[in-house]
Structure formats: structure tokens, C-alpha cells
């Protein structure tokens, strides 16, 4: 890794097709800054993206990347990291990809605690399909497919993560570029699964959870006496329905990632030209 990597090195020459003003611009810039800041470069970084507006990110960034099927970005990222622990793996997705079709994988990725980061662009709407309710949409949020609102409470992804044994949970806001980049950086540096939910407003289809709404309601945990090592305090903040918080909600400082616990320490791409030495012992076992 060279030390003169700048965040623009992670930018591809492809111009984003996100709507002007989309929160995803800021989200992506923060990710690129955090990757550069942590000493990574495009050749040792693997970005996995899901489906949705957020999924386009692999195209606009420059690194090794895979844009997969809807909801399965996390398992792909886990596979990449476990096969080559030298790589920096970052998975990006949206609220639909991560908390609806991919909700099962989210819970299990949190449990597994592989040393990687997961950045979710949460705009509380399905943008790419032009404005349907997402799992984080408000109960009374009217859309083309939910004219009276979804009539079910939104998923609380941070609560899911905490209950599944998360070791790092942060909430970020795309328009606060400085704080956002810092939080993603902390997720990357965390020993384990660094989960960052990013409020990344959709300016086209969501007129409720807007930049103004988040700016007016969000409280920076750095300006409170929040102790991020306390699961109890994290729980109180996460379940507080009256406020939006920004910052590291919870971090287990004793986290030992799955890859380390299970001894994933090889670059599995490296194999001999024939059967490995000692392979005949496998046959002899069957005597």
C-alpha cells in the first residue's frame, strides 16, 4: 500500500447517474475518503454492492468490485474477505437491499462479525423503482403501492444489529461529510463487522425524510455524554423513537473478528500446480 493515495484515486471515470442532490453522492465521497485515510488503495480494496440506487456505487468507485444480485451483497463480501484476509472489503447497499430482501443475511453477517465494513444508504424509500415503500419507511408514508402507508412499523436496523450481537453500530448522515467520513473510517478500523447506517435522503421520491428533517432532528452523540462501549446506553438511544442520533452508538472494544477466531489467515488464491503435499494421506484415511 502506498502512502500517497488520495480519495480521488477511488473515483472511477464514470459519472454518477444519481439525481442531482441525492444523498448517495455524499455517502460515496465519505467512503472513498475513509478508504484513503485508512491507508488502502484501489488494488487492495474490494467493494461489493447490492441492487438499487445504492448498488450503482461500484461503477462510480475505482477498486476491485462486484455488483451482485438483490440482497446478497453481504455473503459475497464475506466470501471475498475469508478467501483473502489481506483485502479491505466494504459492502454497500440500501435499505431495501439490506433490510428487506437481504434482512436474513444482515442478521447473520452481524453475528458472524467478519472484519469488514457495511455501509447502508438508508433513504427510507425505493428510489430506483420510482417510489415504493421500503422496510424503513414510516408507517403512514403514502406511496404508489401503499396508498394508506405501509401500515406496519419500520424496521429498526440498529436494534436488529444490537440484538444480533453487533460489535460496531454507527449512524451517519450523508450531508455532514466530515462526520460521515470519520464514522466510515471508524467502521473500517474496527476489528470486526463495522456497520454504518447512513441517512442518505432521496430528493425525488421522499418528501418526508428530507435533508431538512434530518438536519433539524439529528443529535450528534459526540455532543452528548453517550458511552459507546455501553450496550445499555446504545439500546436506549436506538429505541428512542423521538430523536435521530448520529455517531458511534455501540462498539465492543474486545471484539475478535470471526476470521481471526476461525483462523482465516491464508490467501486462498495461492495453490500448488497439482495435488497438495500430503494429499495421499487423505486416501489412506479410508483404509
Amino acid at each position, binding site marked *: 500500500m502506498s502512502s500517497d493515495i488520495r480519495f480521488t484515486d477511488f473515483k*472511477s471515470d*464514470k459519472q454518477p447517474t444519481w439525481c442531482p442532490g441525492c444523498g448517495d453522492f455524499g455517502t460515496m465521497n465519505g467512503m472513498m475518503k475513509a478508504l484513503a485515510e485508512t491507508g488502502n488503495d*484501489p*488494488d*487492495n*480494496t*474490494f*467493494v*461489493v454492492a447490492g441492487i438499487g440506487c445504492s448498488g*450503482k456505487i*461500484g*461503477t462510480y468507485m*475505482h*477498486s*476491485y*468490485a*462486484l*455488483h*451482485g*444480485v438483490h*440482497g*446478497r451483497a*453481504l*455473503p*459475497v*463480501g*464475506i*466470501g*471475498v*474477505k*475469508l*478467501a*483473502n484476509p*489481506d*483485502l479491505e472489503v466494504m459492502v454497500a447497499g440500501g435499505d431495501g437491499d439490506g433490510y428487506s430482501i437481504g434482512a*436474513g*443475511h444482515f442478521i*447473520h453477517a452481524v453475528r458472524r462479525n467478519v472484519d469488514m465494513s457495511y455501509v447502508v444508504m438508508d433513504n427510507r424509500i425505493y428510489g430506483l423503482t420510482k417510489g415504493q415503500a421500503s422496510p424503513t419507511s414510516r408507517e403512514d408514508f403514502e406511496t404508489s403501492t401503499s396508498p394508506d402507508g405501509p401500515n406496519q412499523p419500520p424496521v429498526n436496523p440498529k436494534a436488529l444489529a444490537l440484538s444480533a450481537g453487533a460489535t460496531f453500530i454507527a449512524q451517519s448522515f450523508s450531508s455532514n461529510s466530515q462526520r460521515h467520513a470519520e464514522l466510515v473510517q471508524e467502521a473500517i478500523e474496527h476489528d470486526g463487522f463495522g456497520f454504518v447506517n447512513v441517512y442518505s435522503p432521496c430528493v425525488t421520491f421522499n418528501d418526508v425524510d428530507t435533508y431538512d428533517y434530518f438536519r433539524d432532528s439529528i443529535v450528534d452523540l459526540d455532543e452528548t455524554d453517550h458511552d459507546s462501549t455501553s450496550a445499555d446506553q446504545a439500546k436506549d438511544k436506538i429505541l428512542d423513537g423521538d430523536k435521530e442520533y448520529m455517531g458511534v452508538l455501540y462498539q465492543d472494544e474486545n471484539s475478535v473478528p470471526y476470521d481471526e477466531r*476461525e*483462523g*482465516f489467515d*491464508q*490467501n*486462498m*488464491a*495461492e*495453490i*500448488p*500446480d*497439482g*495435488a*497438495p503435499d*500430503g*494429499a*495421499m494421506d*487423505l*486416501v*489412506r484415511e*479410508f*483404509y
Partner: protein
Amino acid sequence: MPEDLNWAIGGEAGDGIDSTGKIFAQALSRAGRHVFTSKDFASRIRGGYTAYKVRTSVDRVESVVDRLDVLIALTERTIDENMDELHEGSVIIYDGERTTMQNVEIPDEMIGLEVPLKRLAEEAGGAIMANVVALGAACEVTGFPIENLDESLEKRFGDKGEAIVENNKKAARAGQDYVQSEYDHDFGYEMATTDNDYVLLNGDEAIGMGAIAGGCRFYAGYPITPATDVMEYMTGRVDQFGGKVVQAEDELAAINMALGAARAGARSMTATSGPGIDLMTETFGLVATTETPLVICDVMRSGPSTGMPTKQEQGDLNMTLYGGHGEIPRFVVAPTTISECFWKTIEAFNLAEKYQTPVFLVSDLALAVTEQTFEPETFDMDEVEIDRGKVVDEDAIDGWQNEKDQFQPHFPAADGVSPRTFPGTSGGAHMTTGLEHDALGRRTEDTDVRMEQVEKRERKVETAQEEEDWDYREFGDPDADTLVISWGSNEGAMREGLEMLDDDGIDVRFLSVPYIFPRPDLSEEIEAADQTIVVECNATGQFADVIEHDVLERVDRVNKYDGVRFKADELAAEIKEAVAGESEVKA
């Protein structure tokens, strides 16, 4: 037909049927006898009938037969379940002192041996050894020298301590002595032993061993009968060679983890059965269009839906050939024997990496649960060859970059095969996507680029068709008028069947086909025969359909795949061209 003995132990699931049967099978194998085992079982932990069957001979045995000579019946139902296979003179060993076995009636033409298995086991040190008492009794009945059992008992119970091993040896001899003293009878069996050393393994184990030998270092899976043994085999063993097994939360995750590991450069695989293949189908297209080398193993069982999870079927041929939306270049390989499970797995990895495609390795329950003896040299590790295809390292990366120094993972090379570079390689950073993409791996809907990429992926298949051997295995009389074609695990039964047919004066040419796609062109062989019969374990004849398709008259084709519908004037022009003699027109 080999001079064989057919032996079984049956009872309730949870009675230790499997481990007892395996002890006997291993003892036979160690004594230089060939063994072919099979299982009747249900998918539950306790209760329900289950049996472990052993066919043994000094000659090779390739199949099960419908005949049972010696049966250890721990339940009355075991006798009922096997009545069709039992015959005049068959010996049935059972514990007449067991409450549920006191009223057992053995047909007159058979020989019932009442052996107090539980009581003798208790005398030897514990009721838990009742099955071993039965093994000792079986040794006496079959004339199999009981010393051969000792090594198996040591292997099975060695980690429990010397005393346990000795008690088991004692228990076996108690069974032997009891039969000798109570039934002084020559049952007419000869169990010759030889100096040959055989190994005994099943198809799932052979796949797992082949995977490790063939360089597989990452396995992700979700437990499912009858594929779980592949995962269990690799767990712990692949670790010794720098690899790992991951149990995923479901099959969707399993195939995506395997895909991720493959993108990272590992030889990677997942194995499942029907219901799991259904779920994995979602990702087939992604594997193919991102040109990721991946081995997907389907150990077939009876479907549809949950079907009969512990029963045999070759019902997923269409699924593996055609599953998934859109058009997916893929290879489908179906090993025909347990030893071929080993070699075809290695070949599957080579094909996957050389052509950067998904390879379906299609096995079935019959191969998975059958253990068979082999000379250890059958699995000669020195013969294993690994071909990783077009891997580009740091020094060679320049040659595959465009004018803007960007690496081109989907470069439309003449043979269709693009360069591949592993993440971490300097100058190789690139993306790929399940969206149609350009040479750089970036999304496109440009019709020319779309067609270029479709054709490039197809060209890989054409290249493979030309460069690889997609041959069949031939048995029987090459000049016979009757041609039998089969795929997958039926080879062994058909080979022995050929000998029986020969005894009846029926000559058959038998082709066993391990390649489903690409597959050998059998039109000449079919042409030369008076009658062609396709044998497979399913109701509709899925392989028969593709074989018939292969020999049908060819039609001319007009195809369009640029993402735009047919337009009237364009279509008229294409038809005109076709009429003028173009056999295949690509719009």
C-alpha cells in the same frame, strides 16, 4: 456375476445401524474383499426403519442386487421390509429374548438364528454392544474370520480406550461362540480373504477429497441430505491445506459466499441438493455473466419440493441444464461412479477456471450414500493436474489494459476467454456486475456491446467444445444392435446387468455419459444401432429428451439478443436471408 454375499443389518434409526454396518464393511475391505454398500434410511434421528447393506466378493462389485443372504434384524419390521430380497436358505439373526421379537415367525424355507444379543452383550460388559455380538454371530454364519473384525473395532472405538475395545472384541466372540455351540451348522458360505488393501469411501467423500486435491480452498454450504457429507468431509480436512468450510445461513448465502471467494481468486465450491439448487438458481446468471469460476455440486434426491429426501432420483438434469432466467453459459458434468466423483470434481475446477463459467457437478443419492472399495492407486494424487486458465499477474497486466490503463475483465478475446486477475494485483482493479457490461465490467445497454458480450460468452462454450474431450465410457459389445445410453450413477448396475443379459444371449452396447453439457455427439452411434434405450432414474426421461433432440433434423434459426424486439421489416429481411441459404442468422 461375482461370487458374492449379501448381508444387512436393519432396525430403527438410532439403533447404531450405520456404524455397525460400517464396522463390518471396513473389516471386509481390510481383509482384501471388495465391498459395495447401500442404505435404506429415513430422514429422522430416531424411529423409522433403517438398514445398512453390504454386498461383498473377492471380485469387484459395482452394484446392489435384489438378494439378501444374511440379515441381522433388530426389529420385526426389518424382516418384513426385506422379505422380497430374502430367499430359500437366507439366514436371519435376531434376539428372540427381546420383548418385541418374541413372536417373530421365520418362513420355513429360511434359517432363523435366535441369538440373545442383549444378554451376551451385558455379559461381555454392556448392553450397548448388542450389535457387535450380532457381528460376531454373522462372522460365524458367513465363515468370515473374526480376527478381521478386530481392526475395525479398534478404529471405531480406539478413542474410547483399550478396555472398551477389548470388551467389544469379547462381545463379538460371544456372538460367534453362541452360534457355534447352539447351531452347529455349515451355512455354506466361503469368505476368502486376500492380501489386497482397499480403501472404502462414498461418493460425497470422493467429491470432497477431489475438491481438496483439485485445489478447492473455500467451501460454503447449508446442510441438506444427501449433500451434507461433502461438507462434513471437507470440514477440518481442507483446513490442513490452507482452506476452510463455512456453514452459511441458507443456500442463497452459500452460493454468494462461494462466488465472493472465487472472485478473490480461490477455487471455491458449494454443494447442495434439489431444494437448495432451487434457491441457488437466483445466482447462476450472476456467476455466468460475471465470468466467475465456480463449482456448484448438486447431489440429487427425489423431488419435487421436499419429495423423498432419503431416496434416489436423477430429476434435476433439466434444472442444472436450463435453470435460471436468461441464457446462461455453463457446463454440466455428472460422474458415473464413486471414483469418478473424485476425478470429475478435479476436472470441474479446471473447466471452471479455464473457461470462467459455472460448472455443475451433478451427483446423486445413490453415489452419495454408497461406499465402495477401491485400490488406493485409483486416487493417485500424482496424476492430479491443475489448470488455472488465463490468470494475469502484475507483470503481465499491461497487456490487458486499455489505452486508459484500465484492466478489461471481459475483453472479447478470439476464443471468448478473457484475462483474469486476482484482487490485490497492482493495476488490476476492476468491477463486474450482473448487469450487461462492457469489457471493463461496467453497465451498458449499448446493443453492439451487448451482442459482443453475449457472443463472447457463447464463444467460450464453443472453444471448450473444441478443446476438451467430452467423451463417453463404453462397455459391452461394440457391434451390438441394441444401444443402451445412461448418465450418472447407473453405470455400475448396467455393467453388471450386461453380464446377466449376456447369459441370456442378449448383446448390448452400453455408453455411460458423464458429460451432460457439452456432451458427446451420439448420432453416429444411434444411427448404427437398431434400437436405442436411454436409462435414467426419473419419470419423464430428461436425458432421453436431450439425446432425442440431438439427433433431430436441424432447423434454421433467426435469433436476436441485442435487447430490442423484432421489427417487421427487419424480420422479413432475416427470413429472406435464411431462405436464401444462410443456415444461422444472427440479428
